[in-house]
């Protein structure tokens, strides 16, 4: 069963001065069970609107959405208890303590102190639980919001830009948390405009731009959609190195002060050995992988939906 199923989602917003803005334009998406699913796109791509539609906060103009197999329009209340979510910035009462914020939410589902303590422990906020939320750093607020989503022990987590505004340490914390949650068998649907960040966490990704789906699938497959991978080689005499590799039937070119060999990364040992046999010694040898930024830019340029 797909955890999230979206068919032909379209959402138009009426502007105050007339006219309409199309935030999501015929989006189709299927999120499989388990693992981390990255929902990627630049700001204004329609990610948050899609999430709001999924959670019943925004009424779609057309299309069909289902969450854990339940139709969002009719049966959302029957599954909302199994879904944890953060939409945009974590929204908590700033003057209440972190714990009081969680208590208020926990009571809705009849969760007790044990669940609150466990959630706070999980995100490392137990020591600061009694401090007012307004005294928290952005990272702590984000962790508190994640703690709130964990109160219900959800099978699906929908997180909208969880690393937004965090410092590098905070980003690493959130990344580790998402990985561990995904490893527990939960499905994590995480939206982000920081493509490199999600690349390190997600198993599957969908890339959207201007409300349309650009591509979706396992990360490796998406990365493979734009050209193959290669190996970057640096050494003192680039020209001699190119000749040696060419003689060994390893296609390569000199580019940007290095040799780019058009072979998969697992052939690095062959490259190293070939050059060493010609008395040429590498100073750097690394895979030339395509990242999601590159994929995104190429795909949006190809389809004419880039900014």
């Amino acid at each position, binding site marked *: 069963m797909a955890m999230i199923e979206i068919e032909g989602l379209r959402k138009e917003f009426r502007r105050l001065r007339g006219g309409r803005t199309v935030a999501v334009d015929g989006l189709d998406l299927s999120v499989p069970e388990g693992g981390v699913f990255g929902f990627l796109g630049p700001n204004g791509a329609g990610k948050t609107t899609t999430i709001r539609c999924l959670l019943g906060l925004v009424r779609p103009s057309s299309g069909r959405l289902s969450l854990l197999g339940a139709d969002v329009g009719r049966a959302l209340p029957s599954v*909302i208890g199994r879904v944890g979510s953060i939409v945009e910035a974590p929204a908590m009462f700033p003057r209440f303590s972190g714990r009081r914020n969680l208590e208020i939410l926990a009571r*809705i589902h009849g969760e007790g102190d044990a669940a609150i303590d466990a959630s706070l422990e999980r995100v490392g906020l137990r020591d600061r639980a009694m401090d007012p939320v307004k005294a928290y750093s952005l990272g702590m607020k984000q962790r508190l919001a994640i703690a709130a989503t964990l109160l219900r022990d959800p099978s699906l987590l929908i997180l909208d830009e969880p690393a937004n505004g965090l410092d590098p340490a905070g980003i690493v914390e959130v990344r580790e948390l998402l990985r561990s949650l995904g490893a527990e068998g939960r499905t994590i649907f995480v939206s982000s405009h920081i493509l490199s960040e999600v690349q390190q966490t997600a198993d599957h990704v969908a890339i959207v731009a201007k409300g349309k789906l650009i591509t979706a699938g396992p990360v490796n497959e998406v990365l493979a959609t734009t050209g193959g991978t290669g190996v970057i080689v640096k050494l003192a005499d680039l020209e001699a190195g190119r000749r040696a590799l060419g003689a060994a039937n390893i296609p390569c070119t000199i580019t940007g002060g290095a040799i780019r060999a058009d072979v998969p990364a697992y052939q690095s040992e062959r490259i190293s050995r070939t050059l060493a046999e010609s008395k040429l010694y590498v100073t750097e040898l690394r895979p030339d992988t395509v990242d999601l930024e590159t994929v995104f830019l190429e795909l949006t340029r190809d389809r004419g939906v880039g900014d």
Partner: protein
Amino acid sequence: MRLFRSELLRARSRRLVWMVVLGGVLATLIAWGFAAYYSHKPSAAEVATAQQAFDRNIAACLRHTGNEVPPGYDSADQYCRENAGGPYLDGFVLSDLDTIMHHTATFVILLALIVGASLGGADWTTNTMTTLLTWESRRVRVFFVRAAVIVATVIAITVFIEVVFAAVAVLVAATRGSTAFLPPDFWRTVSLTMGRVSLMAAAFAVIAYAIAMVGRSTVSSLGLVFGYLIVFEGIIAGFRPSIQGNLLVRAAVVVVSHQPIVDGGGGGFSTVLLDVPRAWLVVGVYTVILAMVGLVVFRRRDVT
């Protein structure tokens, strides 16, 4: 019930709620402090003189009405006892407490307005409505449960403040005033007044809450409510006296005082502008209609 408990905890955790309680108690203590300072305990002779003067006033009032029973009263005697003015003593007399509570009802209702607007508007300002709706997606339930919590909170606050108010009044009367002339059903009358004031406060809080759910902020709700009640109703009532019977403030005054607005022009009691049952109806209609508007808007509008 779980959502009710959650909402109750949220309301209880709001600093504003406790500030309103504290403000009400402080205002009570300050007001009665001044009253005690300027009052004095009357002598037995002063009390007897006041009783004689009061009896004469009642007799004059009965002669004036010609025993005609004014609308809204059971007898001419009741009308005269409630309208001829109590026995006059130079100082605070406990029997005036009911009348004083009618006049302080405005203050209590204003506090309730602030509580209702804030409990409705704060979630929009802090964006926690999004969080709440991702926990309980049934908006109709959210709306009604929160309205119920607001009613419960406002009634608890106003009853508490009024009880404190009455308790301090008794203390002041016993030490610096008089407890003479208390009618036999005095405490029953005072209790009913407290109940009516609390119910009116709850109704106004629900109105402020409903408007906050439409305007999605506390400030817009308070601005609109005060603007309407003070400016609009004030002007309308001045220019179009005939529609006074449909105005919210007039209806609330009639409910709290439990006395109709009577057109005394021409020396008779023939024209009742707004009687008590109709006043309840007017307040009820305003509350229900505005609550329904708030519910429909909350249910239909996107939360962005």
